[in-house]
């Protein structure tokens, strides 16, 4: 058993849960699970189970902290007390506050904030079960909920963890792998249409070469997640008339984004809503 534990990829190239090194766990997404919200999604990613809801854009509270030029995202990443092996204190902890901050910033990159000056877009995510990768799962769910709410975005945000365990570079680590003595954990999220990195964190010892290799795996994995997101949104927007813009159509936009952080002119953005992102 002890020995077993240290074998993260067996001779058949399979991991402890029988996945290949580049294989992500099963993802199931349901849209519109929270009727009270402007948009919502329920996402299962392996054992991870997450509810995401979007409210707004609404008037910013408190008013004197609002931004007169754009909307602000208030992201809330919360874990149920029973979502982890050891009971979590129900009060939000410092880890949840940090994750809420970076996930909210990732979403702000993709939302056309300038269209809703002075408002807040509230994104609430609640983790009810977890097993490594809950933050990328929460961000993935939140992005779908935003699309469900009809918030105009440049791209869906697609996220996945990558990293290392037992010397192997792998995607979508589970808890067992995250606990490896040499574990490296890299939560990653991109704007799916452009591969721009909007979330990137890392813990663990890794060389430059390994990092560059695993990043490539991560970009591929994010595209797989993107396919899942698109599939479920397509189902919802089946009868939408507009064409889905292809990756090529977005290339101009992409260059713009890399070059300049100033708000785009509104007229350039008017076709990027809900089902349009698929």
């Amino acid at each position, binding site marked *: 058993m002890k020995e077993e534990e240290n074998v993260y990829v067996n001779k058949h190239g399979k991991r402890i849960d029988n996945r290949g090194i580049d294989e992500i766990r099963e993802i199931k997404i349901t849209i519109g*699970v*929270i*009727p*009270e*919200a402007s948009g919502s999604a329920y996402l299962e990613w392996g*054992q991870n*189970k997450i*509810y*995401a*809801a979007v*409210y707004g854009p*609404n008037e910013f509270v408190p008013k004197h902290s609002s931004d007169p030029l754009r909307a602000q995202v208030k992201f*809330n990443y*919360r874990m*149920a*007390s*029973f*979502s*982890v*092996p*050891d*009971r979590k204190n*129900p009060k*939000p902890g410092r880890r949840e506050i940090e994750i809420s901050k970076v996930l909210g910033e990732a979403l702000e990159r993709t939302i056309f904030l300038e269209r809703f000056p002075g408002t807040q877009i*509230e994104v*609430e*995510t*609640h983790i*009810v*079960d*977890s*097993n490594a990768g809950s933050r990328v799962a929460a961000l993935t769910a939140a992005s779908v909920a935003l699309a469900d709410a009809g918030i105009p975005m440049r791209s869906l945000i697609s996220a996945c963890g990558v990293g290392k365990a037992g010397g192997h570079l792998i995607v979508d680590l589970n808890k067992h792998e995250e606990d490896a003595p040499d574990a490296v954990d890299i939560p990653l999220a991109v704007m799916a249409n452009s591969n721009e990195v909007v979330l990137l964190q890392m813990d663990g010892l890794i060389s430059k070469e390994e990092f560059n290799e695993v990043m490539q795996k991560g970009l591929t994995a994010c595209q797989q997640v993107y396919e899942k997101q698109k599939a479920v949104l397509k189902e919802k927007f089946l009868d939408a008339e507009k064409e889905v813009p292809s990756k090529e159509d977005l290339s101009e936009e992409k260059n713009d984004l890399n070059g300049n952080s100033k708000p785009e002119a509104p007229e350039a953005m008017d076709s990027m809503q809900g089902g349009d992102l698929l």
Partner: protein
Amino acid sequence: MSEILWELQTDRIVSDLKAGKRLDNRGLNDYRKIEISHDVSENADGCARVKLGKTDVIAGVKFVPGEPYPDMPDEGSISVGVELLALASPDFESGPPRENSIELSRVVDRGVRESKSIDFKKLCIKEGELVWIGFVDLYVLNYDGNLFDACSIAAVAALKKARFPKLDGKKIVKGEYSSEIKLSKIPIMTTFYKVGSSIVMDANLVEEKASNARLSISCSDDKTMCAMQKGGNGSFTPEEVSKCVELALEKSKELRKLL
């Protein structure tokens, strides 16, 4: 919705109810469809999800080994807490618990506790040294009225499925369980909302907002009540209270069968 529209809607609901008519055509004492499921969280030692129409809550139980209180060396404890997640409604805000969630938590807690359905002595691991402390944490996922009953059902449903973790000394062996917790009774809470001069059970959100008084009655079995709570700035006549007591015992008998 504006203040004025609310008043108009309230007037309409009140007069409809006087004529015995509910918005969704239920009878005054009918519950919405109740769905109970349990695949909420593998990390919980017991869990449940309860949908009461569109009202949607989850409950999870976690047992933690701890020291007993000095004055009850052979008893563990259970505590129930409800969080009104900002996720569930534009009416809820994230932040420290306010009086609404505190009242809700405490009323759901008393409904379970006062039924004496859990023998706290069975939560003792070693007298004077180690007992189980059980946490039943509830989260509201979608709020469409009558959280009292939804949370109460979810708490009991989660406890019914709850298992004690296996212990190695004072430490929990992750993912392994010893025995189930046994509930000697199934306490059921039913809540009455007074809307104008009418009283309805299982109010949905618009009915709840139109009401000005609430009476929750918990029944530990078909003949016995174990807890009550009146809320709201309205009132009930003694006759209305009697009527509610009668109905609570009847209706809880029905609901008990679902668990």
